[in-house]
């Protein structure tokens, strides 16, 4: 109960601080409107949550294959449903940020844009597979297998893409990510940023928990109606 209150006030505090404190980007180094960088307080946590959701679904997929318990399949599916929503939001906010700072909505030589796009493709593939199989048992097994394969492929991409795109990226570099990709943030910025990360994660787990309970309830209801 109390953690919901924490989520409420925490997220509210993040929102207030994100807009009332100084912009995370120094005016001298920024490209475009310096205030546009405030979106990073929200965009990065969204992308993080989308990846976290996918990781969770992979873990539940492994557990499903080991135990064949359908509850795990439901949990994996729910995680992916939420994950794709966050991924879409992250892609859109990222695209808006790109337009405001780098001048274009999309650019294939920008590794972060490519990464989130591939995450969307992975989610798309997962749901395409689920809708292509009618038998629930087969569907659960195949979804679990493809989740694991996708996760391993995604891990490869995380390590591949930076190396390849280090060569190709013509992007003017901001000062948030310097040459080696480290994030340089002032103290205030760091507090707000990590609080936002924590709040988004907590929010995700709350919504995830709710969704799983709803799925469980409706499954039980279906069973009872059949009796």
């Amino acid at each position, binding site marked *: 109960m109390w953690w919901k209150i924490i989520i409420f006030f925490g997220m509210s505090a993040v929102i207030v601080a994100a807009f009332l404190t100084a912009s995370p980007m120094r005016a001298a180094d920024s490209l475009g409107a310096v205030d546009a960088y405030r979106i990073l307080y929200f965009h990065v946590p969204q992308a993080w949550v989308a990846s976290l959701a996918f990781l969770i679904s992979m873990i539940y997929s492994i557990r499903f*294959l080991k135990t064949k318990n359908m509850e795990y399949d439901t949990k994996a599916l729910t995680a992916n449903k939420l994950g794709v929503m966050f991924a879409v939001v992250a892609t859109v906010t990222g695209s808006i940020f790109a337009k405001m700072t780098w001048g274009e909505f999309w650019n294939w030589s920008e590794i972060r844009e490519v990464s989130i796009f*591939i995450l969307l*493709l*992975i989610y*798309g*593939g997962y749901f*395409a*597979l689920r*809708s*292509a*199989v*009618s038998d629930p*048992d*087969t569907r659960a*097994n*195949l979804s*679990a*297998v*493809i989740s*694991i*394969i*996708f996760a*391993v*492929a*995604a891990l*490869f*991409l995380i390590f*591949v*893409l930076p*190396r*390849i795109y280090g060569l190709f990226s013509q992007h003017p570099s901001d000062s948030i990510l310097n040459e080696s990709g480290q994030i340089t943030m002032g103290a205030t910025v760091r507090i707000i940023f990590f609080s936002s990360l924590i709040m988004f994660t907590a929010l995700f787990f709350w919504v995830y928990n709710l969704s799983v309970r709803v799925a469980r309830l409706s499954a039980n209801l279906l069973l009872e109606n059949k009796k």
Partner: protein
Amino acid sequence: MPIQSVSWVSKTLAVTRKDIVSEFRTRYAVNAIVMFALVTLTVISFAIGLLSPSKEILSALFWVILFFAAMSGLAQAFIKEEESGTAMILRLSCAGSIVFFGKMLFNLLLLITLSILIVPLFIVFLKISPADWIIFTGGVLMGLIGLSGATTIIAAIVSKASVKGALFTVLSFPVLLPLLVAAIEITRVSFTGGSFADISAPFQLLVAYDVIMITLSSMLFDFVWRL
């Protein structure tokens, strides 16, 4: 007559040989894959052949042709088993991993046959030839191993779906992306001429990808095969 113990290697090769023989009779897969690659190559040659595309672009196009040909030709690896009713016998007679490696070997042979036909035509139509044949052949070989290694299990997954359509391509692309990135890089270096040092990173990635994907697929294959 004493029962001889047959090694799993010869069992695997038996599965491959069975596929080769049945393929020889009907030539469905080999026709599909070669004609598709041929048509794609022709379209590309018509479209941009006269514009003297750069070696970088051509190395990417080379793998585009191979990728889409593989998408069209490898999807049916398990479908014809299910349709002709021989799947049950396969399941009863040998372990899942034998079927997996047998099919994978067959797919690899299919792709190698395709390459032997397409590479000379590619060189002739687009007026490009590898500066370093060792790098080129090594890259293509490793890439084809990864291609068949990663897509065999996906073909098995798709064979269980009720609505197949473009499912194979949708599922394969995110999985094959690391392979494509590395293979295109190696081919590019082989076209423009470079040292072994240039390709050491993508080559290591390719080898790692092949090993990990084949291992992962062979571990997960039974979960799909035994449904």
